[in-house]
């Protein structure tokens, strides 16, 4: 009999290496690199979430200040850039980060599914026939692939709701975000959507904040415990801060009463803002 080299079945690669792209695209070809991109875009998006939330706190100062804040955003860059130029740059950057974040997440999920699926003789999505007994994986980490899409759907809803004003119809007043927010959140179903989305976002952020340290390899036993604390802190702030809007509107603590300017009177808002 001819001597043959035993090549165990398990030695056959499942994922073929594709052609190596030039630097830095080759980083994105590996799943570790993709996690790295996911973490970096996560940081960017997290920054956006926090800044966006803090900006929205102007709502508590009143319609004028919120309008003024919106104007400041449009005028970012001062005399250096044309009006709304920098804002658009940020928007495009944000959209890019979103796309990368989503693409890396989706492609890695697919990859993991493929790495497990042939093992699946039991049926369904389950890797094992017995009840899986998770020890370390918490609710947040296991639901990233659910909280992510929820946040995405919410985001589309949110844009349609307050940026494009699709269903507020005549009640949507361009340039009066205060009114728009109040008008939208006054509807209980909408408020519930905001609450659900905020909870999902916070859960997503809780695991994401801890996880990004791992993915980026930022690690030192001296401060490793702080990573969990930080994750809890940030998730908590995002949760409480963003929940405050629908809750307070629903509780009628924020409403259109006692406004100095009439709803729809954008010129009045601008005038008041200038007096500041």
């Amino acid at each position, binding site marked *: *009999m*001819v*001597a*043959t*080299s*035993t090549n*165990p079945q398990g030695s056959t690669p499942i994922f073929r290496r594709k052609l190596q792209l030039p630097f830095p695209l080759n980083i994105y070809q590996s799943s570790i690199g993709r996690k790295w991109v996911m973490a970096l875009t996560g940081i960017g998006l997290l920054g956006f979430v926090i800044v966006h939330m803090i900006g929205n706190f102007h709502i508590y100062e009143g319609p004028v200040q919120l309008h003024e804040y919106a104007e400041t955003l449009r005028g970012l860059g001062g005399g250096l850039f044309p009006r709304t130029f920098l804002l658009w740059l940020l928007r495009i950057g944000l959209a890019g980060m979103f796309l990368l974040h989503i693409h890396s997440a989706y492609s890695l999920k697919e990859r993991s599914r493929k790495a497990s699926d042939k093992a699946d003789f039991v049926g369904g999505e389950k890797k094992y026939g017995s009840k899986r007994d998770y020890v370390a994986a918490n609710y947040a980490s296991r639901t990233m692939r659910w909280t992510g899409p929820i946040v995405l759907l919410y985001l589309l809803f949110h844009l349609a709701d307050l940026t494009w004003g699709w269903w507020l119809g005549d009640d949507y007043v361009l340039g009066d975000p205060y009114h728009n927010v109040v008008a939208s959140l006054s509807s209980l179903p909408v408020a519930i959507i905001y609450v659900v989305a905020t909870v999902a976002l916070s859960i997503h952020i809780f695991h994401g904040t801890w996880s990004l340290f791992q993915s980026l390899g930022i690690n030192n036993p001296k401060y490793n415990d702080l990573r969990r604390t930080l994750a809890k802190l940030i998730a908590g702030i995002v949760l409480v801060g963003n929940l405050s809007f629908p809750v307070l509107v629903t509780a009628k603590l924020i409403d259109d009463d006692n406004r100095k300017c009439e709803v729809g009177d954008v010129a009045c808002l601008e005038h008041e803002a200038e007096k500041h």
Partner: protein
Amino acid sequence: MTVLNSKIPDGPVADKWENHKFSTKLVNPNNKRRFEIIVVGTGLAGASAAASLSELGYKVKAFTFHDSPRRAHSIAAQGGINGAKNYTNDGDSVHRLFYDTVKGGDYRSREANVHRLAEVSVNIIDQAAAQGVPFAREYGGLLDNRSFGGAQVSRTFYARGQTGQQLLLGAYQALAKQVASGGIELHTRTELLDVVLKDGRACGIVTRDLVSGEVASHSGHAVVLATGGYGNVYYLSTNAMACNVTAAWRAHRKGAFFANPCYTQIHPTCIPASDEFQSKLTLMSESLRNDGRIWVPDAFDDTRSPSQIPDSERDYYLERKYPAFGNLVPRDVASRNAKTVVDQGKGVGTLKNGVYLDFEAAIERDGEAAVRSKYGNLFDMYQNITGENPYQTPMRIYPAIHYTMGGVWVDYNLMTTIPGCYSIGEANFSDHGANRLGASALMQGLADGYFVLPYTIGDDLAGRLGEATVPTDDPVFAEAEAGAHDQINRFMSIGGTRSVDWFHRELGKIVWDYIGMERTREGLEKALSEIPALEEEFWKDLRLPGSAATLNSGLEKAGRVADFFELAKLMARDGLDREESCGGHFRAEHQTDEGEAQRDDENFAHVAAWEWNGADSVQTRHQEELTFENVALTQRSYK
């Protein structure tokens, strides 16, 4: 009386290896790739040999029955590895390690081999450290040493309690590097079934793929057997479940002499068996004896818990009998004394099959943290297995079979009596004499693989340049394959009633009772009548469900147990003929008034090497006389 040529080089013992290296024929670097070498077994010895040979340029085929070379049982060695580095400045030297090893082996090893072993021990440490083996270090970043069973200097390098694991991983990684470079063709889950000879020379092997059941032939210019020891003949031992003698034994059946099979080592610190179905005994590092005190209750059948037995009613029998060495007497002495007290009825534990190893004094002296840092993992392991906490209650220990000094006879070049067939590591008989010192097994396995065989194999190969390997369609291979098929078919068609494990267990009981820690003429003769009877039953009453064309661990075990039967008979015969006590071979008839082993240097200062004469006749005993020019033969005394 000179069938056996040990090829020991001339000259003073300290120069022999140097001289030999110089006089050994060399194979030109460009010609090495023309030689194919088969290495069977990928433990410490096999992996290190395969890697080193491949680095030199030889084409290597490595075989293991495991799913990965990293599983070999070398991985379980805990304590450490000796190296005559004298980093501790306590008077160690190559000569002292040589001396200690010859003495520890009870003057039944070859001086020249042992000296070579001591010489290369320092290179092993260097090699391992460079490979990244995470040896224990001191705060200055330099290597730490400890003293180990039987040694009065600190020359043992260690990596927590997992030295064997780390050294094996080092060798495995060196092997992996060569596999990736194409220098080694690695065959996993493949077991050797036969060594094939053509014109009296080893020309290849026959293997069985354990997954597909396929029987195949592999040819090479040389065959290296690095297949470990035969401790599993006892069924219960500290060996892994799959350890076996099959490769060595099949070589023996083809003409390799088998030397000193009665030299088996008992390890004094194992966890006693808890019931009949126990599948193996777990060893705890002997280093525990550095700080633990061994005792039994004074009273017979004392059922009190150890904490209730006051110091005055305890017998610290090793400290009492051997004041100089105390709890650190050599393994065989410690083991036999444990057997003596247990046989007296002073044993502890439910089955009364152990003695206490007590850390109370050490914890009091150094604190629990210090003890934990030294032995933490061993204590955890003990607690996990027994459910008892050794920080609070003494451990129970009892000896178990651990290592076999006997093995395939090899000359100074590590070649067996089959030209072209080599044996290295525990599989050969060479360096430990009748008893092995602690922390010397890792040393010998790696010495053979890294630093001896790669030199000595060239001596034979150099003269064979241009010779092609025997093609695997040669009739010698066809015949060997047919023989392998025959045996498999025979096993599968017995259709009896008992499992392989049942026979193995029964065989183990006989071997442990009569060829165990203490042997007598009567017992050995009894073994020689009981083993063949059981063997006959095995061939009539074995039941092997399943097929030979798939993974079938019963079939694998059947082949191994069949060889154990034949080996056990030879062990008894060897023990019977060796009318003396030495090292791991203790004949009750030959002991001093103090109960110590009584050697007979006049008549037995030799190696007994057995020649196979066919399945139906008894092997012939050959002798290789041992001469001691550098170490004076003394009666061991550890008082």
